[in-house]
């Protein structure tokens, strides 16, 4: 994990403590590969996104989008209550979709979490791998994937 507000502010998930989240973002150019999506889908399969959380999934490229569709990965996410969007810049830099408001917290598989990176300067971004992002989306708070199995 990387805690707000620096990617190098890293710590094991066991030290994060109780962090309730408003948004989980699985994707970006950096960590939206087919493998990332597969890992997230495996964690979330048969489960539901927590009612207080927006789970946004964005494959890194149109090719990955198509491959994920053919493999049924996108269906798994949609059935869990996630939204899947077009490969392009978006939530990672507070561009569009899921722009964080004041006081909101997000867990994200992207790679930057500076002040205001995903929206309001009063929001916070925790960086994590796709498995943790998917698990946290289900739990409504940052958790290890083992905690939702």
């Amino acid at each position, binding site marked *: 994990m990387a805690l707000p507000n*620096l990617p190098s502010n890293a710590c094991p998930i066991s030290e994060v403590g109780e962090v309730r989240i408003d948004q989980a973002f699985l994707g970006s150019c950096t960590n939206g590969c087919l493998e990332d999506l597969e890992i997230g889908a495996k964690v979330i399969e048969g489960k539901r996104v927590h009612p207080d959380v927006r789970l946004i999934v964005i494959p890194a490229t149109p090719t990955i989008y198509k491959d994920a569709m053919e493999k049924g990965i996108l269906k798994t996410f949609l059935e869990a209550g996630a939204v899947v969007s077009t490969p392009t810049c978006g939530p990672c*830099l*507070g*561009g569009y979709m899921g722009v964080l408001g004041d006081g909101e917290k997000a867990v994200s598989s992207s790679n*930057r979490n*500076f*002040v*205001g*990176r995903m929206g309001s*300067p009063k929001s916070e971004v925790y960086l994590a791998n796709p498995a943790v992002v998917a698990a946290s989306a289900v739990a409504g708070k940052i958790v290890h994937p083992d905690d939702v199995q």
Partner: protein
Amino acid sequence: MTTQGRVWVFGDNIDTDGIIPARYLTTFDAEELGAHCMEDVDPEFPSKVKPGDILVAGKNFGCGSSREHAVLALKGAGIAAVLAESFARIFFRNAINTGLLVLEADGVRSILDAGDTVRVDAKSGTIVNETRGRSLTAKPVPAFIQEILDAGGLMEYAKKKLQTDAR
């Protein structure tokens, strides 16, 4: 290139979202970007910064995204040079390519305080605190980089060079 100006001091890891937040990336207009430069780091900066001011920072200045807007915003705000203990590499090249003087100056924060007047000589790397009489030597700017800066950035430099070569 020699420049003299009033000093602003910032800390380590000033990122490009801090220099110009993503919500303003809808324009390439330097002046418009400058009006919001550093506002999430210091809300008073855009209204108090004056043309010719010099920004001093710690380690890893300009980390984060590759946005050229970060340099444009600083230029639009009137910043004449950035002196930092170290720079993130993409910002560093963006700055040179866009014609903003950047000098890597180890220990620069130990000789300069906010509001001081500093004189910077890019060629020799000399940084002099005119207010307190302290100085240090930064990494000088190599001659070919100096040429790019003098031209006002890489595009202008290339245009000039093509014109000269065509003669």
